[in-house]
Each structure stands twice: as C-alpha cells, then as structure tokens.
C-alpha cells in the first residue's frame, strides 16, 4: 500500500511538471488503475464479491473509459501541448512541494492511528485533492481542467478507501455518475468552444462578459 501511495504522489507531481497532454492522460489513467487495485489490497483476507466489483468497475471507468474519451477529445481538437499556463511548470512543482507539506500537516492534525487508517495513503489522497484543485486554477486548457477534476475525484476516492472498508455501493455509483456528468459536460463545452472560437483557451471566456469590449469578440468571430 505504501508503494501505491508513493506512486500516487509521483503521478501527481508528473502532472504538475509536464506540459504534454498525452502524458497527462496516461498518468491519470494509471492513477485510476492504481486506485482500482487499492480496495482489493486493503481488504486482503476479507474479500467478497462487492469489493471485486468495486475494484473492477473503478479500473474500467477511471483507467480505461474516461481516458479513452479524453484521448478522443484531444485527437478531435488537434491539441498536443499545454499553452503557457498561469503558473509556470517549474513554479508548479514548487507549489506542489508546498501542497505536499500541507497534506502532511493536515494528516498529522487529524491524529489518527495507523490502525484506523493508513497514514501515507491518506496523505497522498489529500495531496491528490490539492493538486487537482491547483491544476484547475492554474492551467488554461479546458482538457487539463477536466483532467484535474478527475484527479480531484481520485483523491476523494482515496480518502474514502482509507476511512472505511465497506464502502456503500450506492455512494460509489453516485460519485461515478458525478464524474461521468462532469466529463460529459466538459466534453460538450470543449466541442462548442472549439467550434465557436477555434481554440480552447478558457481564459478567453472572459470576453463573453458584457463588461469587456465587444469589439474583440466580434474580431474573434470574423
């Protein structure tokens, strides 16, 4: 389990530092597979068919389906790389270090014993949540933002696995539905953005606001 947590942290750091979208999608897929395997490892000795279904469905949805959707989106729009983000890639790594420290601090504040919850996994899950939030704020591409949403969801899932073993199936379905809806909406948005504005820079969405000069929006259309 320590290995999975370490790999989770490393994958988040890779997301922070890399600018290539294919790499990012593969990393998130790998995260999904890791998290699918996690409840199986956690429940060693106590496995019943519910855990198997949970693990397999996680692996399939987070590790295969959603990344495949993302890849299709990327291919349709022809984007390869992240454009210059608000926070550069080097400073992102530094912020990542700070967020890691924050995750450690929060975990120690909760004052749980290792018997109740594996602390390293909890730390890495919190870290994944923070990294997801950070990426949503700091990156410009809409695809990266939806990837960040997935990472956030992975983190929440990780925290859930830490806290309890008999995870109610309905809650898990609900979460997955959330993810599905989120991705669906984002995909829709991507498609429309691409069609209307011929680029996917969400920062330029501010031009839709009435407060900005209408002339620039007209220029974009023309």
């Amino acid at each position, binding site marked *: 389990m*320590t*290995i999975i947590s370490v790999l989770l*942290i490393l994958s988040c*750091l890779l997301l922070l*530092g890399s600018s290539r979208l294919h790499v990012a999608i593969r990393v998130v897929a790998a995260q999904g597979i890791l998290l699918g395997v996690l409840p199986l490892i956690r429940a060693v000795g106590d496995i019943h068919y519910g855990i198997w279904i949970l693990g397999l469905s996680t692996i399939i949805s987070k590790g295969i389906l959603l990344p495949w959707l993302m890849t299709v989106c990327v291919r349709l729009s022809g984007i390869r790389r992240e454009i210059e983000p608000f926070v550069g890639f*080097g400073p992102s*790594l530094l912020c990542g270090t700070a967020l*890691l420290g924050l995750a450690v601090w929060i*975990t120690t504040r909760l004052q749980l014993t290792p018997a109740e919850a594996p602390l*390293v996994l909890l730390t890495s899950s919190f870290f994944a949540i923070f990294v997801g939030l950070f990426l949503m704020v700091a990156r410009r591409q809409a695809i990266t933002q939806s990837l960040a949403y997935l990472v956030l969801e992975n983190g929440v899932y990780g925290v859930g696995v830490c806290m309890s073993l008999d995870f109610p199936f309905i809650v898990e379905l609900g979460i997955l539905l959330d993810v599905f809806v989120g991705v669906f909406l984002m995909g829709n948005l991507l498609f429309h953005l691409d069609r209307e504005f011929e680029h996917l820079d969400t920062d330029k969405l501010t031009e839709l606001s009435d407060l900005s000069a209408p002339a620039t929006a007209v220029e974009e259309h023309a």
Partner: protein
Amino acid sequence: MKIMYWALPLAAWVLSPLMLGIINRVKAFFAGRRGPPVWQLYYDLFKLLQKASVYSKSTSMVIRVAPSVVLACMALCTLMLPWGELQAPVTFVGDIILLAYLLGLARFATVLAALDTGSSFEGMGASREVQFAALAEPSFFLGMLVLVLHFGFSGLSDMVSGISLETWHTSGVLLILVGCSWFVLLLAENSRIPVDDPNTHLELTMIHEVMVLDYSGPDFAFILYVASLKMWIFAALVVNLVVPMHSLTPWLQAPVFLLGIVFVMVLVGVVESILARLRLQQIPKVLLGSAILSLIALIVRLMG
C-alpha cells in the same frame, strides 16, 4: 584489519577508469557499434601524461593549481567511502557532510579555472555548472537526512553497515526512493544524458565538457581521471545504499560491491542510450524532482 580498510580506496583509484569504459561500451552496443575497448581511458591517461602542456596567455596560476586541488579532493573523498561492513579509512560522525563539501570545493576550483581562461565558452559552462550545483546540493542533503532519520546520525560507514534484507522488508521503499534520487544526482553531477552530453562539444549542450577545453597534457590527464573518480564515488554511494551488504558473508561483500558498481555503470549506459538530452530550462525541474523524491521518502518514514 586496518590494511584491509585501504582496499576500497585502492580499488577506486585503480579501477575507476575501467568503469567509464564500461559505460562507453554499453552505449556503443545500443548504437549497434563495437565501441572503444574498455581500457581506453587508461591508454588515454598514459598518453596524456607523457605530453607537454600548453597554457593560454590569459591564464594565471589558478588553472595551474586547479587540477591538483580537484584530484586531492576526490582522493580524499574516496578515502571516506565504505563498502558494506568494511569501514572507510577516514570515518567520523558527519563525514558525509565533509564529502559533499569536498565535492563542492572541487567544483569551485573547476569553475574558477574555467573563468581563468577568459573564454566565453568556458564562462557559459561555468555559469550553468554553478546553477545546477546550487540546486543539486539540497537534494543530496535531503537524501542524507532520510538516512540519518532511519539509521541514526553517525559516520557513513556506520550508517550503511546495517543495511540488510530485513531493512529491505521493512523500509525498502525508502531505500529505492533515496537511491533513485541519488542516481539522478549521479547523472547530473557527472554530466551524463539527460542532463549533459559528455560526447559533444557544442556550446549549446555543454556544461562540464566545455569547462575543460583549455587543459592539455598532464593537467588534462588529471581532469579525466578525476571525472572517473567522481563517477565511482557517486556509484559507490548508491550501491552502499541499495545493496543489502549486511546479509552477505564478509568475503562475498567485496565482489558483490564491485558487481554493484558495474551494474550501476551499465544502468547509466542504458539510460544514456534510451533518453534524449533535456532542454536546459528543464534541468532545474529534474533536480527539484530528485529533491522531492527524498521528501517523499521522509514522509513515508514519518507516517508509516
């Protein structure tokens, strides 16, 4: 028993040029070539020691003294390396700090000798070298911190002599993480791909290679030998960390150690053949990444 302690430094002094030859051979194999013989560096050193030297008119005594300073630092460093349970000739609590700073002194001397020539190529290399060194030092010390936390603060020989298979069972992840972090530092400090290309001499790609452009004859021999010693030192640190020497019989430890170093060299050759050189702006990220690996090891140690 005291004489035995000098066996490893002696092995380092004699065998280190062989290790660079092994790397070149592995790279040649990947490229489909036959490559130079593994003893090539010995031939080169022998040839260079017999040549006369040429000095630039712009230089002063700094470039004449620098090779001696660098070789003295590396020689002293090799005296502080243990192998398995066999202690180093020079060992005291905190000697690993002295090792890091001796490497820093060697770097300082090299950089000053590069600036001494008054060439803009060498100035470029010197400037990049100090940048990456400033970022690599904290990474090394964080790895050191993980070791201290796990094994207690003592001399390097005492800290690594306790690594055994049980240590791997309980905290194998730590050893792997710090080992990876130090391996990245090995690549950075010894000017290997993906940080620097030891073969080309274009100013766009050079960090270490360009700083030695104006050495000749015996000075250059010293510098090449120092490069091989430096590689041995870093490889020995990684091998000491990763290989569970404590579980082997004493007679087996020496050959396993040497095999370990050869294995690290092969790994370096493979990495050099597979990866491409990174853009210069990416290298601080790589160094920061290696520091973060040590930080993760720290977190695992604290939490688990």
